[in-house]
């Protein structure tokens, strides 16, 4: 069964096309990620699916229902966490959850939600006194308190320290295990790889690749990357591609990047070729291919421009 279906979604603001024909199908029970750089249209897309924004064109179905006709029923079944929400600082954690709980006909016990988001010791603390990670967990707690079938999360771990991210990931895993469906956006490839069953890589308002994290990485045709810089005469991409074990090669800003599935063949061949050309290797890095490399391969740009 499909939890979300959207086809040919379009949204344009005065000077920019935010969503440019986005197609998505999310299965019930899966965790689906929209991975892309800032400004790729992820937030606009997810807010359209949440019924908080209206598309210029396109077809949206959420849990088999439509915005505009089934809003009341839909709102009861969705849990939503927005990117920039700051909850009321004067309320305590427990009061905040009680407020959100009161909006839902059926929902979870406050104590259970507190335990889930690991905020029991902070129950009586005012929101203004919480750390960033605790605020974020409370924000997800507010999304969970209505026992949603479908959870929307927009950049849930942006700005969090590694430990807080880990805690949030565990929390989402629990929700998954109980059969919940998640749609999340992120620009962290590791988060996408850990949490998501399937991913859509989004760039400039379009889906440019779709699949499981493994499928996407395999689509590169290689599991390893060699990145190196050379002093001396330039090397040609054709020459590099002809080397034993090398699958693809391209120039980067500072040097070269080569993909391979057999490092033991490619490295000696590469070293030979460099010394033959009269150059000297100044830097060599090898790593296992990641989603970041997939994005680089597809767009020629980094996921994060920092």
């Amino acid at each position, binding site marked *: 069964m499909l939890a979300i279906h959207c086809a040919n979604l379009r949204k344009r603001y005065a000077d920019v096309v935010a969503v440019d024909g986005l197609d998505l199908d999310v299965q019930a029970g899966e965790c689906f990620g929209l991975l892309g750089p800032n400004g790729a249209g992820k937030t606009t897309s997810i807010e359209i699916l949440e019924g*908080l924004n209206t598309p210029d064109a396109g077809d949206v179905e959420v849990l088999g229902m439509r915005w505009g006709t089934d809003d009341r029923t839909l709102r009861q079944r969705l849990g939503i966490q927005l990117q920039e*929400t700051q909850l009321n600082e004067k309320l305590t954690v427990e009061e905040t959850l009680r407020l959100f709980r009161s909006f839902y006909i059926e929902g979870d016990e406050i104590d259970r939600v507190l335990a889930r988001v690991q905020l029991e010791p902070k129950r009586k603390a005012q929101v203004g006194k919480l750390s960033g990670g605790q605020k974020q967990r409370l924000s997800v707690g507010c999304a969970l308190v209505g026992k949603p079938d479908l959870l929307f999360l927009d950049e849930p771990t942006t700005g969090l320290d590694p430990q807080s991210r880990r805690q949030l990931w565990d929390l989402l895993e629990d929700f998954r295990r109980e059969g919940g469906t998640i749609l999340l956006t992120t620009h962290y490839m590791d988060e996408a790889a850990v949490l998501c069953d399937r991913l859509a890589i989004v760039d400039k308002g379009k889906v440019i690749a779709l699949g499981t994290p493994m499928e996407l990485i395999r689509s590169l045709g290689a599991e390893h990357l060699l990145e190196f810089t050379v002093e001396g005469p330039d090397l040609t991409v054709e020459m590099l591609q002809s080397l034993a074990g090398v699958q693809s090669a391209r120039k980067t800003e500072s040097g070269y990047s080569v993909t391979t599935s057999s490092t033991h063949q490619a490295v000696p061949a590469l070293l030979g070729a460099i010394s033959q050309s009269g150059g000297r290797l100044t830097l060599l890095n090898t790593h296992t291919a990641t989603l970041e490399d997939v994005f680089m391969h597809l767009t020629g740009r980094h996921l994060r421009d920092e």
Partner: protein
Amino acid sequence: MNTSPFVQLTLVKLREYTREPEALFWVFLFPVLMTCALGIAFRDGETREIRVGVLGPSTSLGASSLVATLDADPRMSAVVVARDRADALLRDGGLALLVVPARPGGAVTYRFDRTRPESSVARFTVDEVLQRSSGRSDAFLPADDLVHVPGSRYIDWLVPGLLGMNVMMTSLWGIAFSIGMARAKKLIKRLSATPMERSHFLAAQISGRLIFLPVEAAVLIVFANVVFGVPVEGSWLLLTVIILLGAVCGAALSLFVASRARSFEATSGLINFAIVPMWIFSGVFFSSANFPGTIQPFVQALPLTALNDALRGVMLAGSGVRDVGHELAIMAGWTVACFGAALKIFRWQ
């Protein structure tokens, strides 16, 4: 246990108030302090002395004899003032009037600002003293019957105005301010992503405001009554109804004012835009009858004018429901129109 969303939303308002000590100061203490200060400034009993300046130098014989004549009158105190200080003192209210001694063969000149009421009074009092000392005799001596009855002094007139202003301003600021804040923090957007009934949210803003209202109004009324003897001639029930309607009306106006503005700054600007005309025109510190007839329809249509008139009617003249029906209708009209408009145009995202 799950409580109703309306109760929860009202509790939010209540907690916002009680956990913000500054808010409590402005709502409860400020109006009392203001009443106190104004009550002392305009206290009954001894009339304040008129401060008169006589243009110096102090060695001038004419100037010192004028000072002696004027100072002898108990209603005023006179001093010699040098030319370079005279204008500044007149401007700042340090002097109500400046007397310029006569040149040989001429008469004295009075220098004053006619738009200051105390200066106009000084003009005639000083003139009377100088004319008499120069030999004018009065055609007859009138008797003064001074008004000291509680209910007809300036402080009696002022307190209902302060009460009305406070009820209206607290509603306007308290609600629009917190909505502006919540919208800037995307909290309103977050709430609109839940199944929350939007009318519950708006109604809770009003009900949260009303919880403190009885205390807020009672503190001021009781204080003014005990300290200054300001009366409540009419029915307490009607007074309560008027205060309640005034607060609800201010709250609805506040929701309307805060319904669209995206930024916190824009909200503050709009609040002031709504408040300032009422401060000026609605007869808080001076009677709105001072404004020309052409703008009276506007002045009378303001909700704070209606509130103040109704409060004064009940507190000072003992008016009944029929007497203030017109004012109640104006406030009810504003309430319905503003709440309806806010519900329709409120920006949730």
